[in-house]
């Protein structure tokens, strides 16, 4: 029976290096998903706050679908669906083609659409918190629509939306655990491999949970720093 510290050491004997690789995958997946989700979420929010009913409808359908589906199901549908879809397309040219879809990219897209559907709601309520006078003021000093958005609305919008977005980031960090189900070697999958090999399941899954907790704590420090920085800007104004 190996001691706990040997199992958790760095190197061929221990599993710390494997788990560290899992942490790297988890963090890079979350970091890669964030900009994708923010951009799509912002665009969907723009559609949902527009005066044009058809744009609002299109945005609402998007949110309804991706907020209503379980994240795991979305992930499977994108992972297997993309595989089948691309394979069918390739078969048109080359009947023997076999396609393997990248699990990382599938995970990024699936988590991105889920994140964006929640983020669009956060952005939408932030849009509603900005008075109409701000747009009118922007127009009256001769700014174009895009300039008003960039110089007047966005700086206020980000400040209002920040707490909601920070919450979504923490949820995203936890949701990345689902990609272990499509074979990506994230924290949970590495912990699972270690648990199966060493038979110390409680130890390794406990370590995995604590790592997620640590990531959440680090994130909240980062979020606090950002909020302070943004708040200071407001005071200077």
């Amino acid at each position, binding site marked *: 029976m190996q001691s706990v510290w040997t199992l958790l050491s760095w190197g061929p004997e221990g599993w710390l290096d494997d788990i560290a690789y899992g942490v790297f995958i988890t963090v890079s997946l979350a970091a890669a998903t964030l900009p994708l989700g923010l951009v799509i979420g912002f665009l969907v929010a723009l*559609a949902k706050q527009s005066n044009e009913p058809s744009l609002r409808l299109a945005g609402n359908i998007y949110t309804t679908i991706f*907020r209503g589906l379980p994240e795991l199901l979305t992930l499977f549908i994108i992972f297997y669906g993309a595989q089948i879809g691309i394979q069918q397309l390739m078969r048109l040219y080359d009947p023997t083609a076999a396609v393997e879809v990248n699990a990382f990219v599938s995970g990024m897209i699936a988590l991105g659409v889920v994140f964006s559907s929640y983020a669009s709601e956060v952005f939408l309520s932030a849009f509603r918190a900005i008075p109409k006078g701000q747009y009118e003021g922007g127009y009256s000093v001769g700014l174009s629509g895009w300039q008003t958005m960039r110089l007047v609305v966005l700086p206020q919008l980000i400040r209002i939306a920040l707490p909601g977005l920070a919450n979504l980031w923490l949820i995203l960090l936890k949701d990345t655990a689902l990609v272990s189900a499509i074979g990506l070697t994230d924290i949970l999958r590495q912990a699972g491999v270690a648990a199966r090999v060493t038979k110390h399941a409680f130890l390794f899954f406990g370590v995995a949970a604590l790592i997620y907790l640590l990531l959440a704590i680090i994130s909240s420090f980062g979020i606090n720093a950002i909020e302070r920085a943004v708040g200071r800007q407001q005071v200077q104004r």
Partner: protein
Amino acid sequence: MSAAAADVATKVEKPPAIPHGWPRQRILGYALVCMWIAFLAGIAAYLIVAWNGELFAKYAPSYVTGLGVTLLLVAISIVLGAILSVPIAYARMSKNRFLSGLAYAYVYFFRGTPLLAQTFLVYYGVGSFRPQLDMIGLWGFFREAFNCAIFAFSLNTAAYQAEILRGAIESVPRGQWEGAASLGLHKLQTMWKIILPQALIVALRPYGNEIILMIKGSAIVAIITVYDLMGITKLTYSRTFDFQSYVWAAIIYLIIVETLRHAVEWIERRITIHLQR
């Protein structure tokens, strides 16, 4: 004087006219809606083309059982979590530093780690304590994946529900407590007759969201071999390689979640009638 003012007024630039006809936004909006219609029609067409009576007859009953397992799992976890959340919320609000710290640590752990990790921790990790569990006769309980899922989910949702309960109770103004005390009601009566009715109005929407989150989250039990709706879907797909199994599951989940969401909104409209002016 007034003529000069009118002269100035005519030189002022007019606000832009409200767009008529086909402005860019409307074109984009119609294009997007058409894309959605095409997409949904495509799925409907796919389901009709891929319709396979034999397959449906074979797997539809198991989908119904799977749906039952999902709903049962969520119902039991939500109820157990609600019961467990009361002492946690109480401890969290207590003035005893140790007690509130303990409750805070509990809530922080279960809200800060993925539900999947917690489920794995229970399902795989419980084997490490087999001798102890055998001794108190609980090993039979934890051998079933379904029971492990209920255990993990109840602990998880208890943490979330405790926070909902605490937030709702703290949203009731202090004056309500003081008013009740001045009328001679004791603490429990105050809680039951004055604070809770007001708090539950605030808590209704978060509770609805929590149930929806649980239904969506319960899909992960498919990974630990529980045959809920998602588990049946995975099983069907692995046997038939027919993609429509996932599409059907998606439709069922969407219907449940949307029904619940609208039900919560309806209840909220009903119980806040006295607050509308």
